[in-house]
């Protein structure tokens, strides 16, 4: 037997939680509220007959929850007092830099808490002049630094020393620019969410809306695992959480499990036992820049599909997975996120018809996990 490598695969983390939506202490609201930037939502609905309806509803909601891509935004624009008063202090603002790799480039993000986070390289940090901390995942000689600027305090106004220093560093010292993905939820229903795009257009920047990319796959005669919300470890009657997780991943990637069996040369992955047959399984994938408003809406829709069906068309369970951005500076809340060999930060809800759910939170090597 060849010797295995001592420090083989990177350490990844998987947190499994089993709870119920009716439980007042349920953490699903908190998890979705603090997952600021979601890139993709994968919905897997076996046994469901009205998935087409769901697809239609998703394309309808797209017009209401608009996100924008703005090219070459100078960072000092984000500390502009007018911008802060209009968008940061009122409503909820979500900003993330695009096409920047978190491990090699500078990244920027603004959270609804009013913090501007700059995740910058060592060279940029030494030239910028703003105080920051080394990244949590850095070794003895840090290569990346995190600069956190709080935009909301009243003391952060022009004329004050702190503000002037920040503005001078971002504007005159180093003119950093980013391509930004922006979404703003106004505090007042009368104000349109597109006012943020109008603000940047007035500064002479190129603003384009970010459309959602919806892909649907239908698989016929699929073997699905038998799942019971109370059975977490595999038994004779139901599959365990680990088997269910792998099966969900296989469905999301579009892997055909019908031909494979344990002694097949090409692949040994097969549907876990015990399994049942499902006539049609729908896999919906929606890509874009989503905020907690959209993710909560999608979860509600999936729950509706699973919980509201009558006995005849009963859907025992369905799943929705929210993939975070691999280059996001945070995973959940203010927990720092990095990219090592993978930048996973995803949360998957497996909802049952009795309002129980299983929550899988998968994190990569450079992620903080309790």
């Amino acid at each position: 037997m060849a010797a295995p490598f001592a420090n083989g695969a990177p350490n990844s983390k998987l947190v499994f939680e089993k709870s119920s939506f009716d439980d007042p202490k349920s953490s699903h609201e908190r998890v979705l509220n603090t997952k600021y930037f979601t890139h993709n939502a994968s919905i897997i609905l076996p046994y469901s007959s009205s998935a087409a309806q769901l697809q239609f509803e998703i394309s309808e909601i797209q017009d209401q929850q608009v996100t924008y891509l703005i090219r070459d935004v100078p960072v000092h624009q984000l500390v502009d007092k007018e911008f802060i008063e209009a968008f940061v202090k009122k409503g909820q603002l979500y900003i993330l830099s695009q096409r920047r790799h978190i491990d090699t480039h500078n990244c920027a993000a603004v959270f609804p808490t009013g913090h501007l986070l700059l995740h910058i390289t060592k060279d940029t940090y030494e030239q910028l002049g703003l105080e920051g901390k080394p990244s949590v995942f850095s070794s003895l000689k840090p290569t990346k630094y995190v600069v956190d600027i709080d935009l909301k305090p009243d003391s952060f106004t022009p004329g004050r020393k702190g503000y002037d220093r920040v503005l001078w560093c971002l504007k005159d010292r180093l003119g950093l620019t980013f391509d930004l993905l922006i979404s703003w939820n106004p505090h007042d229903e009368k104000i349109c969410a597109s006012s943020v795009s109008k603000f940047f257009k007035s500064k002479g920047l190129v603003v384009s809306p970010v459309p959602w990319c919806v892909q649907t796959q239908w698989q016929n005669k699929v073997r699905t695992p038998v799942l019971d919300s109370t059975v977490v470890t595999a038994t004779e009657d139901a599959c365990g959480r680990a088997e269910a997780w792998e099966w969900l991943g296989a469905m999301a990637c579009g892997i055909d499990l019908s031909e494979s069996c344990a002694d097949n040369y090409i692949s040994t992955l097969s549907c876990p036992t015990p399994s049942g047959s499902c006539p049609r399984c729908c896999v919906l994938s929606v890509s874009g820049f989503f905020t907690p408003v959209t993710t909560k809406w999608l979860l509600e829709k999936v729950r509706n599909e699973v919980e509201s069906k009558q006995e005849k068309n009963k859907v025992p369970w369905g799943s929705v997975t929210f993939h975070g951005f691999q280059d996001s500076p945070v995973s959940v809340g203010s927990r720092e996120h990095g990219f090592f060999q993978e930048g996973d930060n995803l949360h998957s809800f497996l909802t049952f018809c009795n309002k129980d759910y299983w929550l899988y939170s998968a994190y990569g090597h450079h992620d903080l996990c309790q």
Partner: protein
Amino acid sequence: MADDKSCTEETLYSGLSPSIVSHGSKLGLQARSMRQTDVVKSYLKRHLPANRLMANEDNISRRQVHLSRTVKKKKFDLTSQKKKKLTNRERKGMKVFKIPKENQSYSQQLPLHQAWKQYMEEVIPSSSVSSPGAVQAACQKVVKAELQGGMLTVQRSKCPSYVGVCGIVMQETRHTFTFITSSDKVKCVPKENSIFALELHGHIFTIHGSHFKVKAGERSSKKFKSKPTTDL
């Protein structure tokens, strides 16, 4: 008058027994009449070693030697012969290099800066920095030039609060630069882990502080070796 110390035959030989006195002549003893001090002197002369007696002196001086006490020989101390230096505390207490508050104003240091510009014009004439090769030669001269009075800016630093500090150099020590900024603030910036920029004749010269930690006076003779990396 007879001396107290003088003695006659009776007194001198009074201690002897009378039979010796009477039969003294038979024994060959001769009676002498001399003074007490003469007796002592002659006795000492006969019995003491010669070096104990002072030459040409009648007085025998007694020398006391205390066997229990030893006298240390005083060493010839070289260090006490050196000049006494000031300790760090004393030097700081004298505040020789501290510029008084009334002189800590940017406008007062501007004439110094003008003088420095003239000095640099002599060291590196503006006409000589036209070609890239000449710029390289100018770099060598800047390294050896006096920077006090020049306008430097901290371009990069491991500590972000030093970045952007710009002013006229008031003092240069082995490890620091002391600037006066345009807002009349005196800032002392360590050379370590900082990169300074100097503008001269339209060119910007970059000084890597970590490799520049030499006293200003010694810089003219120091040979600067190339380092493997200029990373901070």
